[in-house]
């Protein structure tokens, strides 16, 4: 892998500057059934296509952000701080 990731703060940087934080998932509500928690904790969709992911710019601004990446082509389509979308 040697693709570029766009950090919303620092711009396009080598993927080696980042820590991958996994798929973006919705955490269940505190009282949710155990099955939801098991699903949240252990299951990954592992999409072959575009998925929303967490990234941390470890060697840069040290911020967490989210990105939409095509897992087949490694093209990072967009990236943003989560607050910006809500």
């Amino acid at each position: 892998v040697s693709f570029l990731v766009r950090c919303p703060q620092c711009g396009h940087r080598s993927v080696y500057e980042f820590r991958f934080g996994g798929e973006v998932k919705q955490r269940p509500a505190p009282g949710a059934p155990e099955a939801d928690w098991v699903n949240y904790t252990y299951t990954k969709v592992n999409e072959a296509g575009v998925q929303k992911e967490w990234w941390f710019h470890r060697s840069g601004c040290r911020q967490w952000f989210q990105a939409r990446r095509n897992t087949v082509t490694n093209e990072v389509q967009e990236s943003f701080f989560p607050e910006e979308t809500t």
Partner: protein
Amino acid sequence: VSEPSGALTFEFNGKLVTARPGDTVASALYRSGQRIFTRSFKYHRPRGLLCLAGKCPNCLMNVDGTPNVRTCMTPVRAGMRVTHQNAYPSLDHDCLEMVQRFDWLMPVGWYYKTMTNPRLWHAAEPLVRKVAGLGDVPAMDSVSGNYEHGYRHAEVAIIGGGPAGLKTAVELAAQGEQVTLIDDQPELGGHLRFSKKTDDSLAELTVQVQKHSKIQVLHGCYCFGLYEGNLLGIVQPRRDPLDAERLIHLRAGRVVVATGAYESPLLFPNNDLVGIMLSTAVQRLIRLHGIAPGKVAVVIAPSPMGEAVVADLREVGIHVAAMVAPDSVVRALGNKSVTGIETRDARYNCDLVVVCGHRVPDAGLLHQAGARLQWDARKGAFIPTDFPASISAVGEVTGESLLAPLPIPPERDPRNKRAFVCLCSDVSSQDLADAIEEGFDHIETLKRYTTTTMGPCQGRMCQLPAIGVCARQTSRSMAQTGVTTARPPNPGVTLGALAGARHHPTRRTPMHDEHDESGAVWLDMGEWKRPRYYQVQKGASEKQCVEQEYRAVRERVGLIDVSTLGKLDLKGKDVGKLLDKIYAGRLSDLRPGRVRYGVLCDEAGIMLDDGTVSRLADHHFFITTTTGNLDFVNQWVKWWLVGSGWDVYLTNLTAGLAAVNLAGPNAREVLAPLTDCDLSHQAFPYMACRSARVAGVEALLMRIGFVGETGWEIHFPAESGPDLWKALLAAGRKFDIRPFGIEAQRLLRLEKRHVIVGVDSDALTNPYEAGMAWAPKLDKEDFIGRAALMRLAGEPPQQKLAGFVMNEEVLPEDGAAIMVNGQLAGRVTSVRFSPLKQKAIGLAWVPAELAREGAEVDVRVGGRLARARITEQAFYDPAGARLRT
């Protein structure tokens, strides 16, 4: 003959060789009369210069200790030491030459056919390794010279400094683009430097490129890979022995591949004899090095193609005996060196055979990057198409002006045991045909079975003929047969260049020099250097030193540097809410001035880290993490804050603060004179924290007891580290204070049965197994891991972390096996000799039903089993009375 000015000498197999400026190692050796440059991989057939372009395996030698160096690409340098490879005793007289008489014993795939028994292979391996192969791996530390990595950026990267690359560079630079041009030759110009087609525009173009402020040229650098995101892997060889071999990571906005086309050999029996050279190699020798490579030559070429070559040869006085058509060649004659050519109608004597081979577009980088290669029969070449976005190609690599000298697949039956397709590993056309008979008829399986295209040339010499033979023998077309996948690195890269410089970043605490002066024996903990113990007297053993440090803490007072702890400052109205969420325990009700121990779990209930949480004010907390987990915890906290909308400001103070732990029965008496803070038990009880000045330095004092004695952990500005450290040691002198290291600390905490997360726990440990059932507060509405911990709390754990004492005087190792009834049942996580118990004590994972006072297990010590007794309580001061005085 007088030597030209600037002549220099180097060593070849111990003898001095004179070279001219501009020579490569290969051209200088050739001029000195050397004709055999290598012995072949398997049969030890003599091989001489073939391509002179760095594309074939025929000139690999050991240069200054580095094996398998392409000598035709290596500019000669005064004092170089060059030695031959894979020939015994010499290149000219190699005893192993006789191996080729036994070729009938070595059919294609003979490893797979003969080495069917592991014992047989083990017996044969040393011999096979000696006889077959390339250069020897250098011994550890024998390779001199440095390696380093460099990073560059370019709007456009152009690979190849031939006419097409130069022209494109000038055009793009004129449009304002910032261009980096990579060329593997010592001078720009590509084939125009040695072909007769020279026109005056070259000199002008070269000057334009070199002078243009927007064009940067990487001379003599080769590109071995074109990776995702237009990342180019480039090697810049050493220019002199003091220079570093540099691996350049070049990131380009766009890439223009202008690598041109190279020549690859034709297939006929004995096509590998010394003296058979490609036409471009001969032109290089003549024009670049002023060498006439023979007296009488035969040119193998279709007539329009060959005429230019014939003219070149005549120009330097070489007599051309004949020009023969490629399809008329029956075989080359000769034993070591070529002595003639036999055609269907005649025999010609000669000492040089010039082959006008196939021109192959050098499209490996494009293929790596995802372009397709499409067969073009008229050009006799696979032409790159379907380029990825932002990658393009210009010049001969696109197939322009190519013409096949001979049809492929071959019309005649190509099978012959001495018609070599693959020069790197001695694979003949007969071998390929045999492999196809055996069922390896797909180009990819054929490649893997015969190792054709897998040697140092990476298919540059052999791919096209191999596909030709495969297509013919399987009655498929070239397009149907297809090409094998191109992968980097090509050409090869030294492991040293990939590894880069030997940089080991280390972190030192502010008191590093003080430890050094006190005789610290260092321990590497991640990047940190920490004192393992202090060797106060010369010759004292580690055991003695550690025990002295231990006794100081238990009986008097000790001081340890804990600056490596992660230190995070949290301010804001919602810090309590955040801490309640990320810690298993409850922290929002912590009163200012108090400290609590906290455990962090993940959603699966696994323990991630632990540390102290201090509340300094209503909206101000200070947390510590273990040394190795700071980065993780810092990122973890930040992640949970994203989108929370909570009022929390997180600052990492790890590097800004130094920290020490002063502990022991006399700790209070040592500290009191240095501070105004009331240290009495009433005013400053166990698990309390205060801000105060210590020896004039603003500090945070926490009364905690990791080692089990009255003590204070003191955090203060890093710049005051040495001063405060010295002040504390001075104040403690009358109590015979001792600095103590990690070893003593580990022993002290083990007697208190305190768990170290990550040492005694692992990636599957939950608090209930670790004996910390009190830590998770399940009545909190929500925290990370609550759902999992609720379930874990309801089911009895299968294994538990338990303390143990050995029954006899033996010391097991950390990680020793726990055995129950002869079965493996667990493992020791920490074990030390306890001066208190006068036995080894430790923590171990044992089956839950045995994790009770008085149960017995076996521990493997050396080769035998020793009994240990499980204890539930701390070994030292189980009630914690020592901490509360």
